């Protein structure tokens, strides 16, 4: 392996990225993959909005439309938002806790490739005749009757990608539990680390039900099981429960890391300690916990009976309280601070009113009898885009600007950043605000067209125009990224000037082993504390310079995932082709052999010698 890596040039560069187990590079790969799928999902969104811009539109057919909304929802949630967040968690969280790497570098890479291959698997459906078309929720009665292989792609693709998420979750959890630098107690962890922790714990408990649900779906469709076939005693409501037992926690998995990012931003750009740190942590934990108790609010109209509806309604509303605590803590962090409106801060400022509007509509939906009216209308579409786009996506865009210099060593253009913000922000409100009323006026969601004369025309048109604004914003961002990368002006450790946590005390981008010496943490916002006390480096080392243990790269994760990918196709074409079954067996065997190789080989990693580290430190001092 190493002999290949010695070769210079494109081949070795590629090999390096394919085999990397460095959390920073994996973070970048997550961003790349997630960014690609975000644009893909965004293009799908544009098609939806173009189709709905005018009544009786027959631009795309009814069947195709259903495929597009299904893929839009699935892509955005599983392949764009989550992976991008994983990207930032990977790139930043270990730095925040003063760690050299994550707990399981090999598994980290495996999780990444499972996401990528799962995403590819799902999207290959476009070229295989049919994409999934039963909605991102794939409700069972429709999903098991849906013809073609569309829903099979959904079930298997998500199974692979979901496995990757589970691995990533466990990896982050163990990293945070075991690898905090000396002095970094739980109650000194930066909020982004905390939210990563809670979101990962939620992944740990939310994804197994999805695994089982997808398994049921796969077996019902392909292997003759009867979980959801009511003629055979099955029950489709089981799918709905399982999906939402996963699905509701999933939306908090999406929002909590964004909360973490905004917590960092408010504190950095208000130059002030996060207000009410303890209650912030407590609120995060509480949201995570309550997040598992409310899933049936997606099922108020299923007919669970008034008692179940009442219980879940009240539980749902309870989440408003810890979320409110967070909102007010952010406001009070700004209050009395010294607010500098940089691009990341601009996103944070835009986030507050947007998310609150989305959150309060959520509470309205939580009122079960009112939800009988709102459910499955555009009001719901408005609600969840307000929280997802106004929360998660703004968080992602903010983090992109905030952490770009840390990850790539160069700063995104601030003016272009602000241009992106305004286009995106205005477009966002324009698209989704009006949809609340569409819901009130009786427009169901997931309709491929609507008749003229129902009073929905102009609202839909406004909504579609807004989407164009968002697209312009995203295009400006892409332009910004390209221009910035071409110019590649290097930046210092703390380009924002007010960094408070460990990641801002090391180089941008960090050395591959992160910290030359493991830092000693003496309080919350440790870099800020050190700097206030006159320690310009921002770090007090906890140990002398010594050899550093690092893991080897490995190509096995890609190969292992490839096996699953192949097995997926085998399973799907098992019945109509003769090669299906052999392919399934081959794929599984392949994966298993990769696992066995990995487990039978002793891989103990290697040491970065002390001399090299001293050398790096000298160079660093010279640069200053």
């Amino acid at each position, binding site marked *: 392996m190493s002999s290949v890596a010695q070769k210079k040039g494109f081949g070795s560069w590629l090999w390096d990225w394919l085999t990397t187990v460095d959390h920073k590079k994996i973070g970048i790969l997550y961003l790349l993959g997630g960014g690609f799928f975000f644009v893909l999902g965004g293009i799908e969104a544009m098609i939806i909005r173009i189709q709905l811009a005018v009544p009786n539109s027959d631009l795309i057919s*009814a069947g195709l439309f*259903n495929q597009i909304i299904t893929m839009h929802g699935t892509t955005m949630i599983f392949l764009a938002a989550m992976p991008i967040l994983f990207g930032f968690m990977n790139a930043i969280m270990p730095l925040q806790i003063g760690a050299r790497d994550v707990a399981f570098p090999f598994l980290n890479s495996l999780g990444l490739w499972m996401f990528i291959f799962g995403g590819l698997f799902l999207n290959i459906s476009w070229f295989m005749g049919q994409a999934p078309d039963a909605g991102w929720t794939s409700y069972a*009665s429709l999903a098991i009757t849906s013809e073609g292989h569309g829903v099979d792609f959904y079930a298997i693709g998500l199974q692979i990608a979901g496995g990757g998420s589970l691995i990533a979750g466990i990896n982050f959890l163990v990293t945070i539990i075991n690898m905090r630098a000396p002095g970094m107690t739980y109650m000194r962890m930066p909020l982004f680390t905390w939210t990563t922790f809670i979101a990962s714990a939620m992944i740990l408990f939310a994804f197994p039900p999805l695994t089982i649900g997808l398994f049921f779906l796969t077996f019902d469709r392909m292997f003759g099981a009867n979980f959801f076939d009511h003629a055979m005693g099955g029950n489709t409501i089981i799918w709905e429960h399982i999906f939402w037992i996963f699905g509701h926690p999933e939306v908090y998995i999406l929002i909590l890391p964004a909360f973490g990012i905004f917590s960092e931003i408010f504190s950095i750009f208000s130059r002030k300690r996060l*207000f009410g740190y303890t209650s912030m942590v407590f609120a995060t934990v509480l949201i995570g916990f309550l997040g598992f108790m409310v899933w049936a609010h997606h099922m108020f109209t299923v007919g669970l009976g008034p008692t179940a509806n009442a219980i879940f309604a009240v539980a749902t509303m309870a989440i408003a309280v810890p979320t409110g605590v967070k909102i*007010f803590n952010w406001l*009070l962090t700004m209050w009395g601070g*010294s607010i500098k409106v940089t691009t990341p801060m601009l996103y944070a400022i835009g986030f507050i009113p947007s998310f609150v509007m989305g959150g*309060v509509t959520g509470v309205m939906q939580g009122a079960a*009898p009112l939800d009988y009216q709102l459910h499955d209308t555009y009001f719901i579409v408005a609600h969840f885009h307000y929280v997802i786009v106004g929360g998660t996506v703004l968080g992602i865009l903010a983090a992109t600007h905030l952490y770009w210099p840390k990850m790539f060593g160069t700063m995104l253009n601030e003016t272009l950043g602000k241009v992106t913000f305004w286009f995106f*922000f205005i477009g966002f409100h324009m698209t989704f605000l009006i949809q609340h009323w569409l819901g009130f006026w009786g427009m169901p969601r997931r309709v491929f067209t609507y008749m003229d004369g129902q009073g929905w025309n102009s609202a839909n048109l406004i909504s579609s125009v807004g989407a164009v604004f968002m697209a312009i914003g995203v295009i400006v961002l892409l332009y910004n990224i390209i221009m910035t990368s071409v110019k590649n002006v290097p930046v210092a450790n703390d380009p924002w000037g007010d960094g408070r946590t460990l990641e801002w005390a090391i180089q941008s981008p960090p050395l591959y082993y992160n910290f030359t010496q493991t830092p000693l943490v003496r309080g919350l916002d440790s870099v800020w504390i050190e700097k206030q006390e006159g320690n310009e480096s921002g770090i007090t080392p906890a140990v002398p310079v010594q050899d550093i243990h690092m893991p080897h790269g490995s190509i096995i994760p890609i190969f292992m995932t490839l096996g699953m990918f192949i097995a997926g196709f085998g399973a799907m074409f098992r019945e109509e082709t003769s090669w299906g079954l052999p392919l399934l067996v081959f794929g599984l065997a392949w994966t298993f052999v990769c696992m066995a190789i990995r487990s039978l080989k002793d891989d103990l990693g290697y040491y970065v010698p002390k001399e090299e580290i001293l050398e790096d430190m000298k160079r660093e001092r010279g640069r200053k």
Partner: protein
Amino acid sequence: MMKGLKKWRLFSLLAALTVFLSGCGQEELSTLLPAGQVAKDQFNLLLLSSGIMLFVILVVVIIYVVALVRFRRSKLGEDHIPEQVEGSSTLELVWTVIPILLVLLLAVPTVYYTYKLGDVTAMGAVDDEGNAENLVVDVTAHLYWWEFEYPELGIVTSQELVVPMDEKVYFNLIASDVKHSFWVPAVGGKLDNNVENVNKFYLVFEEDSSKLKEGVYFGKCAELCGPSHALMDFKVKTMPRAEFDEWVVAMQSTKKDKDDAGDTAAASEGEQLFADSCISCHAVTADVKSPYPNLTTFGDRNRVAGFMDHTEEALKEWMKNPQKQKPGNEMPAFDHLSEAELDAIAGYLMGLTVEK
């Protein structure tokens, strides 16, 4: 930046204004113009919750704007180091307790209405003579069309629900193929038609639909059920009880009429053609329940197939190629029939009426 922010405010104000100018939507399908007790209860809940939410938004926005205006670095100077406040238990208590109170304020009516609207105990009630006290309608959702059966009255109809006003009408909901959801926005919230169990609820219709623009309320399928989910509309006619009773009698007598017609005059050409091609699926008497839409009242309808104009042209388009109109539906195409034959059938169907 402030200018940008102000611009946004102005913009959202304008947006809000347009929304209010265009009013509350259309009477026949807006939840904001409730036409019955259930929808009114839900509308009240909407008003209450919107009030609370607007209050919350207002509070947040006020603190937010003041903070943004007062604490800018441009005002305070580049090297101003603010005091590093840890928190404040009083404040934190305040913004824990007040939201709890607000949530309780909403939770109490929520629970109350959940039980009130979910109460179907009176559904099976019978009077001294064993007759049902309340009207019950069995709604079966099929791939892209609705069937309404009045079991006590022995009537089956499709696509258009006819109900009396000012009394609780109870519904049994089920789906015959995949899940659908039964929704009449102006009259009350939706309930799902599941495949494996019967869902029960009630609605109250308090306005006469004849004064509406098209004389009907709009009903929708609210659960993704396949390609033509968007086209799975139905219509609701509400009328005073007396009128409804007349309608029932007229419906019940369609069977007798048929027999008479068969005995006396020779059937019209359209009727003959219909009997040849269509009767295997479509019944034209209100007592027959089959897995296909019952067309007894076709002439009284407001739409063809739930969403197309109620004209002979549209009907012919439908017969010629139902798949084009409603992808995935289960009616075969009759493009082999001549134009004249289609005309005849269309004419016959348009004449099927109990109301005129």
